[in-house]
Protein backbone atom coordinates (compact mmCIF):
# COMPACT_ATOMS: atom_id res chain seq x y z
CA UNK A 1 0.00 0.00 0.00
CA UNK A 2 1.43 3.30 -0.97
CA UNK A 3 -1.09 5.76 0.43
CA UNK A 4 -1.70 5.76 4.15
CA UNK A 5 0.74 3.55 5.90
CA UNK A 6 0.60 3.70 9.62
CA UNK A 7 -0.82 2.59 12.84
CA UNK A 8 -3.92 3.66 14.62
CA UNK A 9 -4.39 3.63 18.33
CA UNK A 10 -7.88 2.35 18.83
CA UNK A 11 -9.82 1.80 21.97
CA UNK A 12 -11.66 -1.48 21.97
CA UNK A 13 -14.81 -1.31 23.97
CA UNK A 14 -14.52 -4.64 25.75
CA UNK A 15 -11.16 -3.67 27.19
CA UNK A 16 -12.39 -0.40 28.63
CA UNK A 17 -11.52 3.21 28.04
CA UNK A 18 -7.99 2.97 29.25
CA UNK A 19 -6.89 0.27 26.90
CA UNK A 20 -5.44 1.20 23.57
CA UNK A 21 -4.12 -1.11 20.92
CA UNK A 22 -2.09 -0.54 17.87
CA UNK A 23 -4.14 -1.49 14.88
CA UNK A 24 -2.46 -2.11 11.61
CA UNK A 25 -4.52 -0.78 8.72
CA UNK A 26 -1.77 -1.40 6.28
CA UNK A 27 -3.47 -3.86 4.00
CA UNK A 28 -7.07 -4.02 5.04
CA UNK A 29 -8.11 -0.64 3.65
CA UNK A 30 -8.30 0.82 0.18
CA UNK A 31 -5.08 2.15 -1.20
CA UNK A 32 -6.30 5.67 -1.73
CA UNK A 33 -8.35 7.06 1.07
CA UNK A 34 -8.42 10.31 2.89
CA UNK A 35 -7.43 10.46 6.47
CA UNK A 36 -10.99 10.98 7.63
CA UNK A 37 -12.13 8.02 5.55
CA UNK A 38 -9.39 5.97 7.11
CA UNK A 39 -10.61 6.86 10.54
CA UNK A 40 -14.19 6.01 9.65
CA UNK A 41 -13.24 2.70 8.16
CA UNK A 42 -11.37 1.65 11.26
CA UNK A 43 -14.23 2.81 13.42
CA UNK A 44 -16.57 0.57 11.47
CA UNK A 45 -14.63 -2.51 12.40
CA UNK A 46 -16.29 -4.66 15.02
CA UNK A 47 -15.68 -3.75 18.63
CA UNK A 48 -13.88 -0.50 17.87
CA UNK A 49 -15.45 2.36 19.77
CA UNK A 50 -13.05 5.23 19.52
CA UNK A 51 -10.28 5.77 17.06
CA UNK A 52 -7.32 8.01 17.50
CA UNK A 53 -5.55 8.08 14.19
CA UNK A 54 -2.14 9.49 13.80
CA UNK A 55 -0.05 9.27 10.69
CA UNK A 56 2.93 7.17 11.44
CA UNK A 57 6.13 6.87 9.58
CA UNK A 58 7.10 3.67 7.90
CA UNK A 59 9.61 3.02 10.68
CA UNK A 60 6.92 3.26 13.28
CA UNK A 61 4.81 0.88 11.30
CA UNK A 62 7.66 -1.53 11.10
CA UNK A 63 8.23 -1.23 14.79
CA UNK A 64 4.59 -1.89 15.53
CA UNK A 65 4.63 -5.03 13.41
CA UNK A 66 7.83 -6.28 14.94
CA UNK A 67 6.69 -5.74 18.46
CA UNK A 68 3.78 -8.06 17.92
CA UNK A 69 5.57 -10.79 16.03
CA UNK A 70 9.18 -10.98 17.09
CA UNK A 71 9.04 -11.23 20.84
CA UNK A 72 7.75 -14.75 20.66
CA UNK A 73 11.10 -16.45 21.13
CA UNK A 74 11.64 -15.06 24.59
CA UNK A 75 8.03 -15.80 25.45
CA UNK A 76 8.27 -19.34 24.14
CA UNK A 77 10.85 -20.45 26.66
CA UNK A 78 8.71 -19.08 29.47
CA UNK A 79 5.61 -20.89 28.25
CA UNK A 80 4.60 -23.27 31.08
CA UNK A 81 3.47 -25.86 28.51
CA UNK A 82 6.86 -26.03 26.85
CA UNK A 83 8.41 -28.56 29.20
CA UNK A 84 5.79 -31.29 28.71
CA UNK A 85 6.51 -32.09 25.03
CA UNK A 86 10.24 -31.59 25.56
CA UNK A 87 10.28 -34.12 28.41
CA UNK A 88 8.13 -36.48 26.32
CA UNK A 89 10.61 -36.23 23.46
CA UNK A 90 13.57 -36.92 25.74
CA UNK A 91 11.76 -39.91 27.26
CA UNK A 92 10.94 -41.20 23.77
CA UNK A 93 14.53 -40.93 22.58
CA UNK A 94 15.85 -42.62 25.71
CA UNK A 95 13.36 -45.49 25.33
CA UNK A 96 14.22 -45.82 21.64
CA UNK A 97 17.91 -46.02 22.43
CA UNK A 98 17.24 -48.59 25.15
CA UNK A 99 15.11 -50.94 23.04
CA UNK A 100 17.50 -50.82 20.11
Amino acid at each position, binding site marked *: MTGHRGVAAASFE*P*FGKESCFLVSF*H*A*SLPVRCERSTLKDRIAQR*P*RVRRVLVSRASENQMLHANQ*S*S*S*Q*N*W*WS*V*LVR*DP*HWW*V*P*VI*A*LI*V*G*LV*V*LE*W*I*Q
Partner: protein
Amino acid sequence: MAQAAAAIPRLQVSRLRKLQALGVMCGLAAGAWLGAAEAPTKLVRVGVSPVVISLLMVIGVFLARWSIPALARGMTQVRLDAHKAPHLILWAILAVCLLAVANTLTIFAIRDIGLSIAFPLWNANSLLGILWGFVFFHELRLAGWRRWLGVLGGALLMFLGAMLLALASSRQAPGGRALHGMVAALAAAFLWGTMYIPYRKAYLTGMNPLSFVAFFTIGELGMMSMLALRSAGGALSLWHELVEARAVLFWLAAGGFIWVIGDLFQQYAAKYIGISRGIPLSNTNQLWGLLWGMVVFGELRGGTAPLLAQVIGGSVIMAAGATAIAFSSAQPKEHENWQAAALRESKRYGTDIDYVSAGLEGRSATQGGEMEYAKRHTALDWIMLVFTALVFVFLFAIARTPMVSFNAYAAVVMLAVMVAILVVCGTVLWRMTRFN
Protein backbone atom coordinates in the same frame (compact mmCIF):
# COMPACT_ATOMS: atom_id res chain seq x y z
CA MET B 1 -13.43 -16.35 31.83
CA ALA B 2 -15.88 -13.46 31.73
CA GLN B 3 -12.98 -11.34 30.55
CA ALA B 4 -12.29 -13.82 27.76
CA ALA B 5 -15.89 -13.84 26.73
CA ALA B 6 -15.69 -10.07 26.46
CA ALA B 7 -12.40 -10.03 24.57
CA ILE B 8 -13.38 -12.68 22.08
CA PRO B 9 -16.98 -12.37 20.96
CA ARG B 10 -19.10 -15.26 22.11
CA LEU B 11 -19.77 -17.63 19.27
CA GLN B 12 -23.37 -17.89 18.15
CA VAL B 13 -24.90 -21.10 19.46
CA SER B 14 -25.95 -22.21 15.97
CA ARG B 15 -22.44 -21.60 14.62
CA LEU B 16 -20.91 -23.44 17.56
CA ARG B 17 -23.16 -26.45 16.96
CA LYS B 18 -22.28 -26.51 13.28
CA LEU B 19 -18.55 -26.32 13.99
CA GLN B 20 -18.84 -29.07 16.59
CA ALA B 21 -20.65 -31.30 14.10
CA LEU B 22 -17.98 -30.49 11.54
CA GLY B 23 -15.27 -31.44 14.03
CA VAL B 24 -16.94 -34.78 14.73
CA MET B 25 -17.24 -35.41 11.00
CA CYS B 26 -13.54 -34.61 10.55
CA GLY B 27 -12.58 -36.91 13.44
CA LEU B 28 -14.44 -39.82 11.86
CA ALA B 29 -13.02 -39.03 8.40
CA ALA B 30 -9.57 -38.97 9.99
CA GLY B 31 -10.16 -42.47 11.33
CA ALA B 32 -11.16 -43.70 7.87
CA TRP B 33 -8.17 -42.22 6.06
CA LEU B 34 -5.60 -43.04 8.74
CA GLY B 35 -6.87 -46.61 8.64
CA ALA B 36 -6.69 -46.68 4.83
CA ALA B 37 -3.05 -45.60 4.98
CA GLU B 38 -2.21 -49.07 6.23
CA ALA B 39 -3.42 -50.64 2.98
CA PRO B 40 -0.50 -49.72 0.67
CA THR B 41 1.99 -50.82 3.29
CA LYS B 42 0.34 -54.26 3.42
CA LEU B 43 1.36 -54.70 -0.22
CA VAL B 44 5.00 -54.58 0.77
CA ARG B 45 6.58 -57.86 1.75
CA VAL B 46 10.29 -57.38 1.36
CA GLY B 47 13.19 -57.39 3.73
CA VAL B 48 13.13 -53.67 4.39
CA SER B 49 13.93 -52.64 7.93
CA PRO B 50 11.06 -51.04 9.91
CA VAL B 51 12.88 -47.73 10.32
CA VAL B 52 13.58 -47.53 6.58
CA ILE B 53 9.89 -48.23 5.90
CA SER B 54 9.08 -45.26 8.15
CA LEU B 55 11.59 -43.10 6.32
CA LEU B 56 10.20 -44.05 2.92
CA MET B 57 6.66 -43.28 4.05
CA VAL B 58 7.88 -39.89 5.21
CA ILE B 59 8.79 -39.10 1.59
CA GLY B 60 5.12 -39.40 0.65
CA VAL B 61 4.21 -37.47 3.77
CA PHE B 62 6.65 -34.73 2.83
CA LEU B 63 5.19 -34.34 -0.65
CA ALA B 64 1.63 -34.34 0.68
CA ARG B 65 2.31 -31.80 3.41
CA TRP B 66 3.36 -29.28 0.78
CA SER B 67 1.18 -30.12 -2.18
CA ILE B 68 -2.18 -30.37 -0.39
CA PRO B 69 -1.91 -26.90 1.23
CA ALA B 70 -0.66 -25.53 -2.10
CA LEU B 71 -3.71 -26.94 -3.86
CA ALA B 72 -6.26 -26.02 -1.20
CA ARG B 73 -5.16 -22.51 -0.26
CA GLY B 74 -1.90 -21.58 -1.89
CA MET B 75 1.47 -21.27 -0.21
CA THR B 76 1.13 -17.50 0.11
CA GLN B 77 -1.40 -18.08 2.85
CA VAL B 78 0.94 -20.48 4.61
CA ARG B 79 3.56 -17.72 4.63
CA LEU B 80 1.03 -15.24 6.01
CA ASP B 81 0.06 -17.66 8.76
CA ALA B 82 3.73 -18.10 9.61
CA HIS B 83 4.02 -14.33 9.86
CA LYS B 84 0.97 -14.07 12.11
CA ALA B 85 2.12 -16.70 14.61
CA PRO B 86 5.80 -17.48 13.99
CA HIS B 87 6.23 -19.17 17.36
CA LEU B 88 4.04 -22.02 16.12
CA ILE B 89 6.74 -23.10 13.69
CA LEU B 90 8.82 -24.24 16.64
CA TRP B 91 5.81 -25.92 18.22
CA ALA B 92 5.19 -27.71 14.92
CA ILE B 93 8.78 -28.93 14.80
CA LEU B 94 8.46 -30.21 18.33
CA ALA B 95 5.17 -31.96 17.52
CA VAL B 96 6.58 -33.69 14.49
CA CYS B 97 9.69 -34.84 16.37
CA LEU B 98 7.34 -36.48 18.87
CA LEU B 99 5.42 -38.03 15.98
CA ALA B 100 8.53 -39.43 14.30
CA VAL B 101 9.87 -40.99 17.50
CA ALA B 102 6.43 -42.39 18.41
CA ASN B 103 5.98 -43.95 14.97
CA THR B 104 9.36 -45.63 15.24
CA LEU B 105 8.59 -46.89 18.75
CA THR B 106 5.40 -48.54 17.50
CA ILE B 107 7.41 -50.57 15.00
CA PHE B 108 9.55 -51.96 17.79
CA ALA B 109 6.50 -52.52 19.98
CA ILE B 110 4.86 -54.65 17.28
CA ARG B 111 8.09 -56.55 16.81
CA ASP B 112 8.45 -57.32 20.51
CA ILE B 113 4.93 -57.88 21.82
CA GLY B 114 2.76 -58.12 18.72
CA LEU B 115 -0.04 -55.93 17.53
CA SER B 116 -2.60 -57.42 19.90
CA ILE B 117 -0.99 -55.98 23.00
CA ALA B 118 0.73 -53.01 21.43
CA PHE B 119 -2.32 -51.44 19.77
CA PRO B 120 -4.50 -51.03 22.87
CA LEU B 121 -1.49 -49.79 24.81
CA TRP B 122 -0.69 -46.99 22.43
CA ASN B 123 -4.38 -46.21 21.94
CA ALA B 124 -4.22 -45.02 25.54
CA ASN B 125 -2.99 -41.79 23.95
CA SER B 126 -6.61 -40.62 23.87
CA LEU B 127 -6.81 -40.79 27.67
CA LEU B 128 -3.67 -38.68 27.89
CA GLY B 129 -5.16 -36.28 25.33
CA ILE B 130 -8.21 -35.85 27.56
CA LEU B 131 -5.91 -35.09 30.50
CA TRP B 132 -3.83 -32.51 28.63
CA GLY B 133 -6.94 -30.98 27.09
CA PHE B 134 -8.45 -30.51 30.53
CA VAL B 135 -5.30 -29.34 32.31
CA PHE B 136 -3.81 -27.04 29.69
CA PHE B 137 -6.64 -25.93 27.42
CA HIS B 138 -9.72 -25.78 29.64
CA GLU B 139 -11.46 -28.53 27.72
CA LEU B 140 -14.43 -30.20 29.45
CA ARG B 141 -14.56 -27.45 32.08
CA LEU B 142 -18.14 -26.61 32.98
CA ALA B 143 -19.10 -29.36 30.58
CA GLY B 144 -21.43 -31.12 33.00
CA TRP B 145 -21.30 -34.73 34.14
CA ARG B 146 -23.11 -36.07 31.06
CA ARG B 147 -20.44 -34.82 28.72
CA TRP B 148 -17.70 -35.99 31.05
CA LEU B 149 -19.32 -39.38 31.07
CA GLY B 150 -19.72 -39.34 27.29
CA VAL B 151 -16.09 -38.42 26.59
CA LEU B 152 -14.34 -40.41 29.30
CA GLY B 153 -16.72 -43.36 29.07
CA GLY B 154 -16.50 -43.28 25.28
CA ALA B 155 -12.71 -43.26 25.37
CA LEU B 156 -12.66 -46.18 27.79
CA LEU B 157 -15.13 -48.11 25.62
CA MET B 158 -12.93 -47.49 22.60
CA PHE B 159 -9.94 -48.71 24.57
CA LEU B 160 -11.80 -51.93 25.38
CA GLY B 161 -12.98 -52.32 21.78
CA ALA B 162 -9.45 -51.71 20.52
CA MET B 163 -8.18 -54.44 22.80
CA LEU B 164 -10.68 -56.97 21.47
CA LEU B 165 -10.00 -56.04 17.84
CA ALA B 166 -6.26 -56.14 18.30
CA LEU B 167 -6.49 -59.57 19.91
CA ALA B 168 -8.56 -60.78 16.99
CA SER B 169 -6.37 -59.30 14.30
CA SER B 170 -3.08 -60.48 15.74
CA ARG B 171 -1.34 -63.25 13.91
CA GLN B 172 0.99 -64.24 16.64
CA ALA B 173 2.51 -62.62 19.63
CA PRO B 174 6.26 -62.76 19.47
CA GLY B 175 7.87 -63.27 22.76
CA GLY B 176 11.23 -62.80 24.34
CA ARG B 177 11.36 -59.04 24.70
CA ALA B 178 8.03 -58.38 26.35
CA LEU B 179 9.28 -55.63 28.66
CA HIS B 180 10.92 -53.76 25.80
CA GLY B 181 7.77 -53.96 23.73
CA MET B 182 5.47 -52.84 26.53
CA VAL B 183 7.68 -49.88 27.34
CA ALA B 184 7.89 -48.97 23.65
CA ALA B 185 4.10 -49.07 23.23
CA LEU B 186 3.48 -47.03 26.38
CA ALA B 187 6.15 -44.52 25.38
CA ALA B 188 4.48 -44.21 21.96
CA ALA B 189 1.16 -43.51 23.69
CA PHE B 190 2.85 -40.88 25.86
CA LEU B 191 4.43 -39.20 22.84
CA TRP B 192 1.29 -39.32 20.67
CA GLY B 193 -0.89 -38.03 23.48
CA THR B 194 1.55 -35.22 24.20
CA MET B 195 1.94 -34.38 20.52
CA TYR B 196 -1.56 -32.92 20.63
CA ILE B 197 -0.46 -30.15 22.99
CA PRO B 198 1.19 -28.25 20.09
CA TYR B 199 -1.82 -29.06 17.90
CA ARG B 200 -4.28 -27.55 20.33
CA LYS B 201 -2.03 -24.62 21.05
CA ALA B 202 -1.87 -23.87 17.33
CA TYR B 203 -5.60 -24.01 16.80
CA LEU B 204 -6.47 -21.96 19.85
CA THR B 205 -4.13 -19.36 18.38
CA GLY B 206 -6.15 -19.30 15.16
CA MET B 207 -3.68 -21.21 13.01
CA ASN B 208 -4.96 -22.85 9.85
CA PRO B 209 -4.44 -26.65 9.87
CA LEU B 210 -3.21 -26.60 6.27
CA SER B 211 -0.47 -24.18 7.27
CA PHE B 212 0.41 -26.01 10.46
CA VAL B 213 0.97 -29.34 8.68
CA ALA B 214 3.23 -27.59 6.17
CA PHE B 215 5.39 -26.39 9.09
CA PHE B 216 5.74 -30.02 10.15
CA THR B 217 7.96 -30.94 7.24
CA ILE B 218 10.79 -28.82 8.62
CA GLY B 219 11.37 -31.27 11.43
CA GLU B 220 9.85 -34.42 10.04
CA LEU B 221 12.33 -35.39 7.39
CA GLY B 222 15.26 -34.31 9.58
CA MET B 223 14.15 -36.31 12.61
CA MET B 224 13.28 -39.41 10.61
CA SER B 225 16.54 -39.26 8.63
CA MET B 226 18.46 -38.99 11.89
CA LEU B 227 16.69 -42.04 13.34
CA ALA B 228 17.20 -44.01 10.12
CA LEU B 229 20.89 -43.11 9.98
CA ARG B 230 21.28 -44.20 13.58
CA SER B 231 19.44 -47.45 12.94
CA ALA B 232 21.22 -48.29 9.65
CA GLY B 233 24.62 -47.50 11.08
CA GLY B 234 25.69 -44.79 8.68
CA ALA B 235 24.82 -42.92 5.51
CA LEU B 236 26.30 -45.47 3.13
CA SER B 237 24.42 -48.46 4.52
CA LEU B 238 21.22 -46.43 4.67
CA TRP B 239 21.67 -45.46 1.03
CA HIS B 240 22.12 -49.13 0.07
CA GLU B 241 18.92 -50.02 1.91
CA LEU B 242 17.04 -47.24 0.15
CA VAL B 243 18.28 -48.29 -3.28
CA GLU B 244 17.31 -51.89 -2.59
CA ALA B 245 13.85 -50.79 -1.52
CA ARG B 246 13.20 -48.57 -4.57
CA ALA B 247 10.72 -51.05 -6.03
CA VAL B 248 8.37 -50.61 -3.08
CA LEU B 249 8.89 -46.89 -2.72
CA PHE B 250 5.66 -46.05 -4.55
CA TRP B 251 3.48 -48.10 -2.20
CA LEU B 252 5.10 -46.68 0.90
CA ALA B 253 5.00 -43.12 -0.40
CA ALA B 254 1.34 -43.62 -1.33
CA GLY B 255 0.70 -44.83 2.21
CA GLY B 256 2.37 -41.67 3.51
CA PHE B 257 0.29 -39.47 1.21
CA ILE B 258 -2.97 -41.11 2.31
CA TRP B 259 -1.88 -40.83 5.92
CA VAL B 260 -1.48 -37.06 5.56
CA ILE B 261 -5.07 -36.71 4.32
CA GLY B 262 -6.19 -38.52 7.47
CA ASP B 263 -3.88 -36.40 9.57
CA LEU B 264 -5.35 -33.24 8.06
CA PHE B 265 -8.85 -34.29 9.05
CA GLN B 266 -7.46 -35.07 12.49
CA GLN B 267 -6.06 -31.55 12.67
CA TYR B 268 -9.45 -30.05 11.83
CA ALA B 269 -11.04 -32.29 14.46
CA ALA B 270 -8.52 -31.10 17.06
CA LYS B 271 -9.31 -27.54 16.04
CA TYR B 272 -13.09 -27.68 16.24
CA ILE B 273 -13.82 -30.24 18.97
CA GLY B 274 -10.56 -30.15 20.90
CA ILE B 275 -8.10 -32.92 21.63
CA SER B 276 -10.21 -34.61 24.30
CA ARG B 277 -12.79 -35.56 21.67
CA GLY B 278 -10.75 -35.39 18.48
CA ILE B 279 -8.13 -37.99 19.41
CA PRO B 280 -10.54 -40.77 20.41
CA LEU B 281 -12.58 -40.24 17.25
CA SER B 282 -9.56 -40.44 14.99
CA ASN B 283 -8.52 -43.61 16.84
CA THR B 284 -11.36 -45.34 15.00
CA ASN B 285 -8.66 -45.89 12.36
CA GLN B 286 -8.24 -49.32 13.90
CA LEU B 287 -11.74 -50.26 12.71
CA TRP B 288 -10.93 -49.16 9.17
CA GLY B 289 -7.55 -50.89 9.19
CA LEU B 290 -9.29 -54.09 10.18
CA LEU B 291 -11.96 -53.60 7.52
CA TRP B 292 -9.31 -53.16 4.81
CA GLY B 293 -7.50 -56.22 6.10
CA MET B 294 -10.62 -58.38 6.09
CA VAL B 295 -12.33 -57.19 2.92
CA VAL B 296 -9.38 -56.49 0.64
CA PHE B 297 -6.61 -58.73 1.93
CA GLY B 298 -8.74 -61.64 3.13
CA GLU B 299 -7.42 -61.54 6.67
CA LEU B 300 -9.32 -63.61 9.25
CA ARG B 301 -10.78 -65.70 6.40
CA GLY B 302 -11.99 -69.01 7.76
CA GLY B 303 -11.81 -67.66 11.28
CA THR B 304 -13.48 -69.52 14.09
CA ALA B 305 -16.76 -68.38 15.61
CA PRO B 306 -15.14 -66.99 18.79
CA LEU B 307 -12.72 -65.02 16.64
CA LEU B 308 -15.49 -63.48 14.56
CA ALA B 309 -17.45 -62.77 17.71
CA GLN B 310 -14.43 -60.96 19.05
CA VAL B 311 -14.20 -58.86 15.87
CA ILE B 312 -17.89 -58.01 15.83
CA GLY B 313 -17.97 -57.34 19.58
CA GLY B 314 -14.84 -55.19 19.47
CA SER B 315 -16.15 -53.19 16.51
CA VAL B 316 -19.53 -52.59 18.15
CA ILE B 317 -17.93 -51.50 21.43
CA MET B 318 -15.53 -49.20 19.63
CA ALA B 319 -18.31 -47.70 17.53
CA ALA B 320 -20.40 -47.21 20.69
CA GLY B 321 -17.50 -45.36 22.32
CA ALA B 322 -17.08 -43.13 19.26
CA THR B 323 -20.82 -42.44 19.22
CA ALA B 324 -20.78 -41.45 22.90
CA ILE B 325 -17.99 -38.98 22.22
CA ALA B 326 -19.64 -37.65 19.07
CA PHE B 327 -22.76 -36.80 21.06
CA SER B 328 -20.80 -35.09 23.83
CA SER B 329 -19.90 -31.94 21.91
CA ALA B 330 -18.98 -28.76 23.72
CA GLN B 331 -21.71 -26.42 24.89
CA PRO B 332 -21.44 -22.60 24.96
CA LYS B 333 -20.23 -22.56 28.59
CA GLU B 334 -17.40 -24.94 27.84
CA HIS B 335 -16.57 -23.07 24.67
CA GLU B 336 -16.13 -19.88 26.70
CA ASN B 337 -13.41 -21.72 28.58
CA TRP B 338 -11.74 -22.53 25.28
CA GLN B 339 -11.92 -18.85 24.46
CA ALA B 340 -10.24 -18.06 27.76
CA ALA B 341 -7.41 -20.42 26.84
CA ALA B 342 -7.23 -18.82 23.40
CA LEU B 343 -7.01 -15.36 24.92
CA ARG B 344 -4.22 -16.54 27.19
CA GLU B 345 -2.26 -17.80 24.17
CA SER B 346 -2.93 -14.58 22.30
CA LYS B 347 -1.65 -12.46 25.17
CA ARG B 348 1.34 -14.69 25.79
CA TYR B 349 2.63 -14.51 22.24
CA GLY B 350 1.18 -11.18 21.19
CA THR B 351 -0.92 -12.74 18.45
CA ASP B 352 -3.53 -10.49 16.88
CA ILE B 353 -6.80 -11.08 18.73
CA ASP B 354 -8.78 -10.78 15.49
CA TYR B 355 -6.70 -13.56 14.01
CA VAL B 356 -7.30 -15.74 17.08
CA SER B 357 -10.99 -14.97 17.16
CA ALA B 358 -11.41 -15.65 13.44
CA GLY B 359 -9.64 -18.98 13.79
CA LEU B 360 -11.99 -20.08 16.56
CA GLU B 361 -14.97 -19.13 14.44
CA GLY B 362 -13.64 -20.99 11.42
CA ARG B 363 -13.32 -17.99 9.16
CA SER B 364 -10.58 -16.00 7.47
CA ALA B 365 -8.89 -13.38 9.65
CA THR B 366 -9.76 -10.47 7.38
CA GLN B 367 -12.34 -9.92 4.74
CA GLY B 368 -10.98 -8.15 1.71
CA GLY B 369 -7.59 -7.76 3.33
CA GLU B 370 -4.22 -9.37 2.97
CA MET B 371 -5.52 -12.90 3.46
CA GLU B 372 -8.01 -12.48 0.64
CA TYR B 373 -5.37 -11.17 -1.72
CA ALA B 374 -3.23 -14.13 -0.85
CA LYS B 375 -5.86 -16.63 -1.90
CA ARG B 376 -4.60 -16.48 -5.43
CA HIS B 377 -2.49 -19.43 -6.34
CA THR B 378 0.97 -18.51 -7.48
CA ALA B 379 3.29 -20.20 -9.94
CA LEU B 380 5.08 -21.79 -6.99
CA ASP B 381 1.91 -23.66 -6.04
CA TRP B 382 1.49 -25.11 -9.50
CA ILE B 383 5.18 -26.02 -9.70
CA MET B 384 4.88 -27.91 -6.42
CA LEU B 385 1.80 -29.77 -7.60
CA VAL B 386 3.40 -30.72 -10.91
CA PHE B 387 6.57 -31.79 -9.09
CA THR B 388 4.61 -33.99 -6.69
CA ALA B 389 2.71 -35.57 -9.57
CA LEU B 390 5.94 -36.24 -11.47
CA VAL B 391 7.57 -37.83 -8.44
CA PHE B 392 4.64 -40.21 -8.00
CA VAL B 393 4.60 -41.04 -11.72
CA PHE B 394 8.31 -41.82 -11.54
CA LEU B 395 7.91 -43.96 -8.41
CA PHE B 396 5.03 -45.80 -10.05
CA ALA B 397 7.17 -46.45 -13.12
CA ILE B 398 9.88 -48.15 -11.09
CA ALA B 399 7.48 -49.87 -8.71
CA ARG B 400 7.14 -53.60 -8.58
CA THR B 401 3.73 -55.26 -8.82
CA PRO B 402 2.40 -56.07 -5.36
CA MET B 403 3.54 -59.45 -4.16
CA VAL B 404 0.50 -59.96 -1.98
CA SER B 405 -2.75 -61.25 -3.36
CA PHE B 406 -5.71 -59.00 -2.75
CA ASN B 407 -9.29 -58.58 -3.88
CA ALA B 408 -9.09 -55.86 -6.52
CA TYR B 409 -12.88 -55.41 -6.70
CA ALA B 410 -13.10 -54.91 -2.93
CA ALA B 411 -10.15 -52.52 -3.10
CA VAL B 412 -11.95 -50.39 -5.70
CA VAL B 413 -15.10 -50.31 -3.57
CA MET B 414 -13.12 -49.31 -0.48
CA LEU B 415 -11.28 -46.65 -2.44
CA ALA B 416 -14.61 -45.28 -3.68
CA VAL B 417 -15.84 -45.10 -0.08
CA MET B 418 -12.67 -43.24 0.92
CA VAL B 419 -13.04 -40.78 -1.94
CA ALA B 420 -16.70 -40.25 -1.05
CA ILE B 421 -15.75 -39.47 2.55
CA LEU B 422 -13.06 -37.08 1.33
CA VAL B 423 -15.41 -35.28 -1.05
CA VAL B 424 -18.28 -34.99 1.42
CA CYS B 425 -16.14 -33.91 4.35
CA GLY B 426 -13.98 -31.63 2.18
CA THR B 427 -17.04 -29.96 0.69
CA VAL B 428 -18.61 -29.35 4.11
CA LEU B 429 -15.29 -28.00 5.40
CA TRP B 430 -15.02 -25.66 2.43
CA ARG B 431 -18.58 -24.41 2.69
CA MET B 432 -18.44 -23.83 6.42
CA THR B 433 -14.91 -22.58 6.91
CA ARG B 434 -13.24 -22.15 3.51
CA PHE B 435 -10.64 -24.57 4.91
CA ASN B 436 -9.93 -22.22 7.80
